[in-house]
Each structure stands twice: as C-alpha cells, then as structure tokens.
C-alpha cells in the first residue's frame, strides 16, 4: 500500500482469527478479488478491510475504480471471484442460494437510482423491505403484519415523508425517492447498511440532507453504514472513516482528518484539480 494505513487500526487477519468477531467486527473482507469473466482484468485486486459495528464509512475514489463492485460483492449482487467476506461470523461467499437470501435480509441497500418500484405507493415500497420476512401470499394480498405497517409509518415520519404515504413512487422528486429508499432499507432491520452512490443523482443541498439522514440512521439505530461516494467534501463531513480506492486497491484507510492532498493525488491522480 503506498500510504495512509493507520497504525491504530487492527489488522483484519487478527480479527478473523479471534473467532466470529460478532461484536468487534460485523463485517470483515479478506483478499477480495473480482474480475468480470476469465482473462478480463481484475477490478478488485485483493481488498482486505474490516468494519466496526457502528459509524459511517465512506469509500471514495474515481469512477471505474471498483467502489461499486466492492460494495455489491458484499451482498453478492456481484459474485466475487475469490476471497472471503465474513458477515456476522459467516462467510457470505460460500453461502447457498437459500442461506444467501436469509443473510441478505440483514443487509439493507440504498441505490444511486433509488430502485423503487415506480408504480407502487410509497407505503408499499417501504413494506418491500419486509419481503424477505413476509410470505409471498401475504405480500400478494397486501396483508402485511400490523407491526410492519406501524414500523413503516414510523420510518416514513422519520424520513419526513409522513404526508406521502399513499402517493405513487413515480410522483416523487429524487430526494424524496431516496428517502423512501432509505426507509425501505431500514425496514429490513439490518445489521449493515450499504449505500451505492446514494447522492450522485441529487443536487448538492439534497445530497447533504440524504447524508445527514444516513448518518442519523447509523447513530440512532446502531447500524454501520458503508457508503460509496465520489464527493470528497461530503465524505469528510459525514464519515468517521474514509477508505480511498484507486484502480482496484485500497490506497488510504483512516480518519477524515488524516486525508491529505497527497492521499487525494494517490486516489484520483493528477493535482491541478486540488488547487
């Protein structure tokens, strides 16, 4: 690693050796490699990181550097080529379909393009977060358990969309849609929240509001949030830890204060843009 890894951070290998790491590190990634197809270049060249049970971690880096691939490997929306991803003590990479589905219920995800079901109402989109727990026939007949419905109302109040419950998702603005997306992810009652460029399609003011909301979820619900973001200022402002990636490798891992211009040069290349 060229620079940046701080001495204070425990090495991932040591954590995994210490057992399940259930309390100390809910998510431990070791030597993660991804290439799209045999003979294609490696997008991730052996990523090893471990994550604390709380706080916001921002992954920064230029586009095409593997940030999104990394975050999608964690819930296996993208299949890792090799390596190990331990989540709550289990290796996600080796899980069968059914087990993977059960583990995915505990990992919420927020997307750049919101990925709401456009023709369903706000309420039903939030309730979609419970689909992993609710039998299909109940979802079909819209007979969600009352506890879920009440939690959905609470979450919509929390994200400030209490008045939009019955509106269709396609009638909302980008910021409102992302709030629904966050409510849906929290509805899963997750142990980990992944956010893949949650602010890239939003204006600067809304971006700040969305990051505030994610930080609030992390703090109040004690859910660790792992967020991909290319906006360094936003990352510095809201994350307790920053991981800088460049060309499929981690080139910085440490607190926002430690992120210097030389690190940014290593992450993004060049230097004219820094002045």
């Amino acid at each position: 690693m060229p620079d940046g890894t701080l001495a204070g951070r425990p090495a991932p290998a040591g954590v995994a050796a210490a057992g399940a790491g259930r309390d100390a590190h809910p998510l431990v990634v070791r030597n993660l490699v991804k290439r799209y197809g045999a003979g294609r270049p490696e997008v991730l060249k052996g990523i090893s990181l471990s994550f604390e049970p709380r706080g916001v971690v921002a992954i920064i880096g230029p586009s095409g550097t593997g940030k999104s691939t990394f975050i999608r490997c964690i819930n296996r929306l993208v299949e890792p080529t090799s390596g190990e991803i331990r989540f709550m003590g289990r290796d996600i990479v080796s899980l069968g379909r059914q087990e993977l589905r059960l583990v995915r219920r505990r990992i919420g995800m927020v997307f750049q393009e919101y990925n709401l079901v456009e023709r369903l109402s706000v309420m039903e989109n939030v309730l979609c977060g419970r689909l992993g727990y609710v039998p299909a026939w109940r979802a079909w007949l819209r007979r969600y358990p009352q506890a879920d419905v009440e939690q959905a109302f609470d979450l919509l109040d929390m994200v400030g969309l209490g008045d939009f419950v019955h509106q269709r998702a396609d009638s909302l603005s980008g910021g409102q849609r992302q709030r629904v997306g966050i409510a849906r992810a929290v509805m899963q009652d997750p142990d980990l929240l992944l956010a893949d460029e949650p602010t890239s399609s939003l204006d600067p003011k809304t971006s700040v509001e969305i990051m505030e909301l994610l930080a609030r979820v992390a703090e109040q619900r004690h859910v660790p949030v792992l967020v991909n973001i290319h906006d360094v200022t936003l990352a510095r402002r809201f994350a307790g830890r920053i991981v800088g990636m460049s060309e499929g490798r981690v080139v910085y891992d440490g607190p926002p204060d430690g992120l210097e211009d030389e690190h940014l040069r290593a992450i993004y290349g060049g230097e004219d843009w820094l002045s």
Partner: protein
Amino acid sequence: MTGAVLHDRIWRRFTPAERLARFAAYLAIVAAFVASLRTVEVIPEFLYDAPEQMADLLNRMWPADLAYYPAGVHAALVETLHIATLGTLFSIVLAVPVALLSARNITRSAALNWLGKLVLVSSRSVNSLVWALLFVAVFGPGALAGTLAIAFRSVGFVGKLLAEALEEAAPGPVEALRAAGAPPASVLLKGFWPQVQPAFWSVALFRWDINVRESAVLGLVGAGGIGLVLNSAMDLFQWDRVATALIAIFAVVIAAEVLVTQIRKRIL
C-alpha cells in the same frame, strides 16, 4: 496531394458492394411478384366480369333479412362472444407460465428459454382455423373445439408479448428486492408484476379484440359460433341471411373496438 484530399471528401451513402446488394434485393422482390402472379393463374374471363358478379351478389344480399336475426343469428352471436372470451381467458392461464419460462431475465437457463420460445412459436405458426379443425376432430363439432382453438392460437401471441414486456422490465427495482432477501415469488409479484401490468392488460384486451373477429369464422369448420350460421346460409344461397350475419359481426367488432379503447384509456 490536393487530388487525394479532394478524393477523400467525396461522400456516398453506400459502398459499391452495398449498392449492388440493394439492386439485387429490388430485383428479387420484382421477380418474386412476377413469379407469384404466374402461379396464381388469374383467369381473365373471371376477372373481367368480377364487377358484374359483385353487383349481383350485393343485389341478392339487399335488403338483409333482419327478421332472421332473433331466430337464427342472436344465439350464435352470443356463442361467438363466449368462445372469444373463454378462449382468451384460457390462453392467458396457459401463456403466463410459458412467458415466465421464456423471459431470459427470469428463467436463467438457455435451454428452458428455448423450450418456452418453441412452445410460443408452435402455437403461433398454426392458424386458428387449423387448430379448430384439429379440435373438431378430437372433441367433435361445437363451441368447445372453438374455445380451445382460440386459446391455443392466442397462447403464442399473449406469451410472446408478455415475455417481451418481462424482459424490458427495469432491472433496478428487481435487484433491490433481491438484495432485501425477497424470495423469487415475491420478486415476481412486487418487482416484475407492477412493471408489466399495463402491458399485460393491453395485450389481453387486444387479443380478446382479435379473438372476437377470429371466432366469427370458426363456424366455417364446425367449431361453433356465428360462422356456422354464415356457412349454412351460404350453402343454401340465402344471401339476405348472409347479409344479416355479416352486419351482426360488423356491429360486434365495432362494439368490441370501442369497449377495448375505453377500458385501455381507463387502466393505462
């Protein structure tokens, strides 16, 4: 030097090879037209007196025997509508699983996709009348044979369009539900269904509209409906009754068209 530059600046839409290919294609179309004309063997004498024959036929048809409608046409017309409606419903029940099988973003097996497409193509490659002949032979003449003929012909149509709608569904929401740990049935119901719903209703209504028209001729081969009335009236040279049946079919087709347009406006 300048000559080369000038040469580079000449622009043609097609290369010489392409132009030759296009000319060959036009030539083939003309040749095919001439060849088919020769095969059809138009008999000039029949062609010349066609207007006379046409006038004579219309003369025999007019005035239409409207008094025959309550006694001979009405029941057959209602049966035609029943054949079309039941056939469409039945075809939807059959088409949904086949569409799920052939949609590549749902069934991730090339062999199964291929199987689904094969079923859909075989359904479409056989005309309703041929299906009707087949089912009349199996179940005997009547509305059942007609209903099955309509259903089996429509499976290919409904299934193909539904499979295409499924394949065009946005992958994002589906991915989001999978990421939340939703089981496959829930992904279908909450991820795909809301997205294909407008296309589904539109296809079902359109097919019903087509089936009303198709079931009107099924009687010609004994598969029930108003075609039976039409056939027997023609055999007996009762052209005024033929006219009544044709007017009834025309009215129903117009009514179906209006109805479908109205419903589509409401649900889309």
